[in-house]
């Protein structure tokens, strides 16, 4: 039955497609009005740690360190989506409960305070990741779990974990393929969910993950090229596992000396990676990005610098004659019934909403809804129930008489 519905639906969609293509003329004429003129209005960060289990401590430490950096440089929690398996801090094997470090000197507790994890544990799946990127959530998903970016947003997408040639492993059970990622980014671009996107990947063979990207406005950097592994930086003998990866370690080193007023450019970040120290080649891809990296400050992606416009003057609402009256009662009759802006043709709008409602009820549902309406009309519920109970006795008698 699924297939039949799918088949008939395809015809309708094809028809719609045809007319939409013709309607493209209409949209093309409007297209030139707002294509290039978007300005950068806000910054978002999507930080994903795709590993779980104790021996992948360093991946969670990577993500949390970057979270802390991005918050310090100004992006608020409401514009950060943090996806972590979050099983390190309270792990039974953690000698320092509720503390996560990224350095063996234990100077910085990354899990200290103000950490808001949006997707944790088993919610970190490829499907949820794509739902975040494309925005296709169920209605009940709260705002804090959605990527509410618009056409003026710069998004930083950081992913870390175990990866390989054209894939990234998610929680040891799924894979994120590079062409799926490219597809999601393409959909994001079509729906104008970002102005510029920076993808940072810290896994083995990271550069292959963004090899299939084709959307303009995307900048990507990976910690290693095809065939190379990315290595951890050092082992913390106290905690017992490696605590940070090399690529992220040097990235953090670069950001520790910055504050939000700095305007170091991206090229200084990208050229600070030393292949011999990383033991891999940090490869970045700029062919889809129009601006020159020397002109782009790192705070464009890692910080949150919003465009501000000064308000020149106040707008005096009330005329100089009338003074503000404190009484609320008086204000009630003060509201002059101004010429309300007439909405002609309200019937058409009602028609559309009626169509909505009618179609939503199938035949059965219509019967059910009429029953419900009748039930609602009954005011005295108790009397109704007792009448129903009393009615059972004669019904029972009748049925018994019929069967004998």
């Amino acid at each position, binding site marked *: 039955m699924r297939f039949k519905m799918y088949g008939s639906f395809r015809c309708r969609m094809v028809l719609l497609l045809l007319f939409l293509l013709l309607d493209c003329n209409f949209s093309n004429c409007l297209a030139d009005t707002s294509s290039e003129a978007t300005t950068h209005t806000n910054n978002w960060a999507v930080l994903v740690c795709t590993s779980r289990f104790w021996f992948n401590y360093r991946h969670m430490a990577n993500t949390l360190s970057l979270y802390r950096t991005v918050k310090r440089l100004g992006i*608020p929690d409401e514009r950060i989506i943090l996806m972590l398996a979050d099983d390190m801090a309270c792990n039974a094997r953690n000698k320092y409960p509720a503390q996560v470090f990224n350095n063996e000197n234990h100077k910085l507790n990354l899990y200290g305070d103000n950490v808001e994890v949006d997707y944790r544990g088993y919610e970190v799946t490829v499907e949820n990741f794509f739902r975040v990127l494309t925005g296709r959530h169920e209605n009940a998903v709260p705002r804090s779990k959605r990527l509410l970016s618009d056409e003026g947003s710069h998004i930083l997408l950081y992913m870390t974990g175990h990866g390989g040639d054209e894939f990234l492993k998610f929680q040891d059970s799924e894979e994120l393929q590079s062409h799926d990622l490219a597809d999601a980014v393409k959909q994001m671009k079509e729906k104008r969910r970002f102005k510029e996107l920076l993808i940072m990947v810290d896994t083995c063979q990271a550069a292959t993950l963004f090899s299939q990207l084709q959307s303009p406005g995307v900048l990507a950097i990976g910690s290693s090229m095809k065939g190379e592994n990315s290595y951890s930086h050092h082992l913390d003998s106290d905690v017992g596992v490696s605590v940070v990866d090399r690529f992220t370690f040097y990235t953090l080193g670069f950001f520790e000396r910055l504050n939000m007023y700095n305007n170091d450019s991206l090229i200084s970040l990208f050229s600070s990676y030393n292949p011999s120290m990383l033991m891999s080649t940090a490869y970045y891809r700029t062919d889809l990005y129009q601006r020159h990296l020397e002109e782009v400050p790192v705070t464009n992606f890692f910080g949150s610098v919003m465009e501000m416009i000064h308000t020149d003057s106040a707008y005096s609402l009330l005329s100089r004659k009338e003074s503000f009256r404190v009484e609320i009662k008086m204000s009630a009759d003060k509201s002059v019934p101004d010429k309300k802006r*007439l909405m002609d043709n309200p019937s058409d709008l009602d028609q559309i909403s009626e169509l909505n409602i009618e179609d939503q009820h199938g035949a059965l549902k219509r019967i059910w809804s009429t029953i419900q309406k009748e039930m609602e009309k009954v005011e005295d519920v108790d009397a109704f129930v007792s009448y129903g109970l009393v009615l059972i006795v004669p019904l029972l008698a009748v049925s018994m008489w019929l069967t004998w």
Partner: protein
Amino acid sequence: MLSAQIESNPLLFPCHFQAIFVGFDSKPSMTPDALGSSILSQMTKLTSKPPQCGTCSTNYSIAVTVDSSLGCIQTRNLEDTSSWRCGSMGTTDFSDDEGVDKALADSLGGKVYSVVVVHGDREEVRAVVGKYRHAWVVGRVSEAEAVARAAEIFVKVFVNGGKEEGLIHGEFMPVGADGKIVLSFNLLNSDPQDWVYDWDFQSIDETLLSPVIEALESVANISVESQVLYHTPKSSFSHWDDEQESYIFSTKDLPFFVNSNEWHLDTSIAAGGRSKILQIVVYIPSARECPLLLQLPNGEISKTNGFISPMWGGVIVWNPKDCLKDSESQHPLRRTISQQDLQKVFEVVMGQFRQLFGLKSNNVYVGASGTSSLLASERGFTEWELDVLSRQHTCFNLHSCATTLGSLSRLVQSLPRMIIMDEIGKQVMYSLEAATLARSNASLGLYDSSAVSSRQARYLAEDAFFHPSIMSVSYYSFEHCFAVYSPFFLPVSMHVLLAALREWRRYKQENKKYLAWKTKVKKDS
């Protein structure tokens, strides 16, 4: 039904204009038709070619009335007759703008854009645009200048909304995809140890905000929330200035003012997933930084102490009176912001709200032929400004709807294996119907209903596109399929193949034997 949508013209609205010239007694050469054609030519010069979406279509209809002591002469326009009462402007006092506005509204009716040019005795020429849909020019004005002024007011103010191109960029359209805006008002006490302020938001909401919200009904569905927060310092720095005797922060500090770590503004429960939240923040500095003033790049101190960030909201810094701190008491003093102060703050808020919608917060329009002052309305937006907003939002919504549906169709095409639910198809259908309705309303000149239908169209299109069932994730690469299914089928298929081969060989053998037996039988018989 579908073919009716096919139109390759940008969305233009029909507009009707009306110009009335009063008191030009000494110029009998001024006929309405001549005036009408000269105004028309001026206007055509001023409009950009090709016309932008949301502006008027190029065939303007202008009705001109000349009211002189000899009586009224009107252009021979068959469709609309001007409702101008001859001689009614004789006794009006032009120094009282509000009164003139009211009088003109009563006499003109307020449906057609009108400019009244009154030839007066005063040397100085004043131009005022009223709260409804008319404007007037008073003074000793020559015919050419009158024509130029009228044309400019028509095109630049009424059609373009006071801007040069008449186009509002997307960053000044803060309406969410479901047509809703949530206005979140926050009063921030940065250091409660010094003083704690409260405000009577309820009264402001009922008196000042509700007319504004009602005025913007066709453009967006607005809901209002408010909260008071404590311990919310700002994250930028300010320095003491002896000259101003206050702490100064400059426009360079503005991007770093909002301290997102400590300001928990995002606690709205009313906002759905696709609504837009605009944060209006009233910031009360601590005693250490009081009074806190904003200095503009040219050295002046800002009159409003406020700034906005497009698509986010606005901030106003309000300094407590005289920065008096009650130093004797241990506990911080709880005070309420007085009604007058609150009203002043809300006037700045209105200015910021207008800025967020792309309109200017001041009341002056400076044009090529002179300055006009714009009257302010109690509803925050004048009728003609609401017209401009409705038109622009209709444009934007329809454009967004078309691109969304286009992306959806491309997506559906590219993934033939994906199953699309009926619900999505229905939403697309309704969205198209709403879009058609919006276009038809637009062609009739009904700005408000077209704005509402276009909002509906955009909402349905977004719903269809963002339907959670369209997940185009394809895990099924060939290697994956092979890896998953080969352990099931390969061993079995191997046995089946071998058995088939054996059978084939046996068949051949038996067939050979059979044929040999048949030839033998034939030979014997």
